[in-house]
């Protein structure tokens, strides 16, 4: 995995580079938009961490140019301005996620992992979390070496959750994702599927947390903070 960090603040860029190098990612750094575009032209990256407030060409310009070149690499935007966050979340600028400075390192790393996983999943048919593995092409799931029996609905819900590990998902979104045009499932039904999935996943070191009155969050049990 190769990551490009585009950030002109030396202290921050160095810190982020070290934190990403520790788990074994290859990290390159660029201090300006121009240099970032040069690097993007010569190397294939799995993720770009892009600061908006760059000298010269700003982050938005870099993002636009790299998308114009047809690069689909996931982009994590860093910004010091909330208004920018609003534009990134509100408009489709082609960024995959954004963080407002300053942020906790742990959160940064989690977002990076999620983006890499998403980019990875886009090419691979395998999803995994804890001891659970799902092969979306073969439509089979395993807990360790044991195959796991899932109904079509349970499969749909679990696949949706697994692709968005660590994210808070509303019941509405889950419902929309798993129901077809001609049928509707109730919020109660979602709860039923969740309790069945929890029972089936009990030995898998996976936790499906309930967010009261909102929805669910799937995470690896051992990654849960104490």
């Amino acid at each position: 995995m190769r990551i490009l960090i585009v950030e002109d603040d030396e202290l921050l860029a160095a810190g982020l580079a070290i934190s990403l190098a520790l788990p074994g990612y290859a990290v390159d750094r660029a201090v300006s938009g121009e240099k970032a575009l040069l690097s993007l032209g010569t190397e294939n990256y799995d993720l770009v961490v892009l600061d908006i407030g760059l000298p010269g060409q700003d982050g938005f310009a870099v993002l636009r140019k790299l998308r114009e070149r047809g690069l689909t690499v996931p982009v994590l935007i860093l910004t010091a301005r909330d208004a920018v966050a609003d534009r990134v979340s509100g408009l489709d600028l082609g960024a995959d996620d954004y963080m407002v400075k300053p942020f906790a390192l742990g959160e940064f790393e989690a977002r990076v992992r999620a983006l890499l996983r998403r980019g990875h999943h886009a090419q691979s048919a395998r999803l995994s979390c804890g001891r659970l593995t799902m092969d979306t092409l073969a439509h089979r799931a395993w807990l360790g070496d044991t195959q796991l029996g899932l109904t079509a609905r349970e499969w749909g819900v679990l696949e949706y959750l697994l692709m968005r590990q660590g994210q808070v998902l509303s019941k509405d979104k889950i419902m929309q994702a798993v129901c077809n045009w001609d049928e509707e499932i109730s919020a109660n039904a979602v709860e039923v599927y969740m309790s069945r999935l929890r029972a089936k996943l009990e030995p898998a070191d996976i936790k499906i947390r309930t967010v009261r009155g909102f929805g669910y969050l799937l995470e690896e049990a051992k990654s849960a903070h104490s």
Partner: protein
Amino acid sequence: MHTRSLRRLLLGWLLIPLLVLLALGSVGTFFMARNAANDAYDKELLDPMLALSQYIRVIHGKPFLNLPASAQNLLLVDAYDNIYYQLIAADGTRLGGNLFLPIPARINDKPLFYNTAFRGRNIRAAALKMHVNGGGSVYLQVAETLDKRDHHLVGILAEMLAPAVIIALAAVLLVWFGVRRGLAPLQSLQEEIAARSHRDLRPVPEHHAPDEVRPVVVSLNALLARLNDSMNGQQRFLANAAHQLRTPLSGLQTQVELALRGTMTAELRVTLTQLLDATVRTAHLANQLLTLARAEPGAMSPDAMQTLDLRNVVEDAAREWVPRAMERQIDLGFEMENATLVGEPLLIRELLANLIDNALRYTPAGGSVTVRCHQADATVLEVEDNGIGIPESQREKVLERFHRVEGSPGGGCGLGLAIVLEIARIHGAAVEITAPPAGRGTLVRVSFPQSSAFSST
């Protein structure tokens, strides 16, 4: 009285002279009418005089009055007044009559009318010096009491008074309305300015103002523009300063967190942990200052207001805050109903973020925080926790900037609720801090006016 009311001034200058003129006019008309009536009655008084003169005879060169009783009754009887007469010869001999008056000095052969008194009553008298053929001159005087004239005068007065009062009243009303109408543009201008929030520094529309007031409006607008500029300058400065702080703080935080992952002495770990805490607090403060700067007057154009679905705002907040709540082992839950409001999206998000952040800070692990929204008379956003709560005596004070409840934990900077209040104010919303029905903890309720009732223009 230093405060001078334009209306009072106008009313004074218009009404008082107008009423004085009206009164003078009435008095003048009255005297003219009275004189005209007097003249008419005086002429009538000549009738008995003429008649009497017919009865003067001359015998042996001396005049005398030969008035039969029947004629006397006919001539000298009047429906209202007593009529008196006397006839005196040129040598002063009294020739007859029931009137006893001296002969006026200015008498000549034209009738002289004058007022005098007789038998204790005011009378009107006419005197005439007549030449009698072959008998020299005689003085003839006729007089009558004033009953008829007084009666007539009362009539004139009564007839004049009613219209005069009506005209005066009409004048008062017309002037009052006129002044009111004339000052109406001023009034509407005043209302327009008074209705503004202190954040609304848009120019006052000049075309509404009458010509006389336009220079004032133009000057006011120039002042508003300068005020706006200086506010914007301050805003930009503060926003830039906060932004400039964020990047180095971000670097600092990242480096300290990295350092803490290594192995080190316990002493150094304590120091680094304190350093990290201070960095996070400073970053939080910078964020809060920036938010506060954005919620200041002049920072936001009224165009930034949009109709927002509160559910969407809460959902965004859920994604951000549920992981943080889980980290602190706090159950963050939601009770959402459909609710909309007109607001500035970034600020509403900050308002909710501050409410949740505050609730999480002051709720111990194992506690719960609930975010609620619903819509009835107002759009209501509530955040309830079962944490340490805010003593009743402190509930007003916590809304002030940099006020922190004594001895409270949580590492807050004392700006959270002040920000909530500022943002609520911009949106015309009310902030209420109570204890939840269960008794323990804090319930903060923000009530936004109905979308339709709040003008976004």
